[in-house]
């Protein structure tokens, strides 16, 4: 566009005059226009101030939800660790300790529920999902330790009741399913630990439980790269590890005294790690 002939002999002069011309006009005869311009600008300012306040509120809420979700995840992990201590202590002691820990988590849920009411539940759900999943996993693990079966979604939500007995938060099907998928990892660890303790029936029970779970999951017909599909892969390898443990138990069970199991199994899980790359 710069190449278009302008008709002026010297471009430098035309710039200068152009600038002075325009300056004169704005200061001299267009004072009215300047006025309206000002009004317009404050209008824009007001508009954007409103929008800013609105956005800030949204960002704040999101921030709070994210923080709570992280806290809930963290505390739920602790709950799972408490569960794993069942190897060295009694179920009653574990459940008692877990109930204490659960109070803290309950409070976190209680605090966050005001921000997740109505339309905001789904608005901030993504930021909250991890917390829900980890919580599901922890509750499912404790339930398995106590009763040896799978916790239902309602039963998890039954822990989230306010004073008048109303459910103040719900967990989506997806978060429930993903949480349960993570449970298989904990059960795998539990199976291996219990062999260490000399418990031979537990791994077989867990193995059967995981097989059932995996069968249920394949009914969901999830696509391979969907969130559930990805978790299915983890489930598969968890089950495989437990199956190897069971195999080790059966095959070496007849050869060695009980005390050697811990050693044998740890050797085995190490070699299976190198096979499956986990």
């Amino acid at each position, binding site marked *: *566009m*710069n190449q*278009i002939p*302008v*008709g*002026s002999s010297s*471009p430098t002069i*035309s*710039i200068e*005059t*152009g*600038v002075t*011309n*325009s300056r004169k*006009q*704005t200061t001299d005869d*267009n004072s009215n226009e300047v006025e309206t*311009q000002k009004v*317009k*600008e404050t*209008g*824009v*300012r007001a*508009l*954007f*101030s*409103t*929008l*800013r306040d*609105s*956005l*800030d*509120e*949204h*960002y704040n*809420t999101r921030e709070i939800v994210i923080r709570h979700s992280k806290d809930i995840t963290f505390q739920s992990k602790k709950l799972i660790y408490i569960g794993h201590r069942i190897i060295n202590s009694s179920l009653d002691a574990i459940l008692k300790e877990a109930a204490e820990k659960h109070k803290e988590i309950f409070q976190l849920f209680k605090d966050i529920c005001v921000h997740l009411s*109505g*339309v*905001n*539940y*789904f*608005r901030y*759900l*993504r930021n909250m*999902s991890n917390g829900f999943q980890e919580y599901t996993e922890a509750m499912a693990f404790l339930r398995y330790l106590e009763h040896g079966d799978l916790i239902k979604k309602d039963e998890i939500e039954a822990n989230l009741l306010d004073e008048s007995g109303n459910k103040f938060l719900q967990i*989506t*099907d*997806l978060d429930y399913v993903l949480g349960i998928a993570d449970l298989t990892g904990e059960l795998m660890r539990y199976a291996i630990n219990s062999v260490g303790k000399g418990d031979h029936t537990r791994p077989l029970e867990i193995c059967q439980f995981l097989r059932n779970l995996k069968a249920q999951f394949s009914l969901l017909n999830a696509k391979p790269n*969907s*969130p559930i599909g990805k978790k299915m892969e983890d489930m598969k390898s968890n089950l495989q590890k437990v199956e190897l443990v069971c195999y080790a138990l059966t095959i070496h069970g007849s050869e060695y005294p009980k005390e050697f199991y811990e050693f044998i199994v740890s050797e085995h899980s190490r070699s299976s790690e190198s096979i499956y790359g986990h």
Partner: protein
Amino acid sequence: MEAESNRRDEIHQLVKEYERICRNITVILNGVHSAQPGEIEAIARKALEKFSEVRQHIQSLAQIVPYQQYYRQLNLSSRYHDIWTRAVQTSNSLAAFAVYLLEERFITIEELQTLSGVPVNINNDLQEFHISVEEFLHSLINLTNELSRFAINSVTQGDYNRPIRISKFVKELHNGFQLLNLKNDQLRKRFDGIKYNIKRIEEVVYDVSLRKLNTSV
């Protein structure tokens, strides 16, 4: 789950029709790029009339989305809201453009609400179908794209003063955006794009004033 998937299909269908209306309005408004300065007002009015159809479509969308489920999550990556947000942004920016063409000013939130027939979620408290603040801001960014194009084409049509007015307007808009505390998200990225539009418009203004083609500021 079955019901949800049916509803999703229905929403997709409605959004498709809604997008068709938006395209029609886009075609009308595209006329300004090749219109004489005198014809612009008529084009803007014609486009604004078409918004009755936009209202209808948003209304039927609003009816099908269940109460409080505006953001309902379908799986980890998509929500109901994601299906229509692009269409809503498009129709918002068309409305903003039409209002600009008519009166050379910003569309107000009230006007947008009237044109679209649904409220803007200014107080973060709306439970039913609404236009989100982000959508509104996105559409203002879209508007700068359109205006930078309009600045160039109005020169071609012999309207040398318009680019200067557009430049002022877009800079005002940019100043407005700088008032916001944006996070590192999509909106922030798109906001950073405004400056390229400003630059394009400024180049036009430079070319015009260099040649003293403009009469007043």
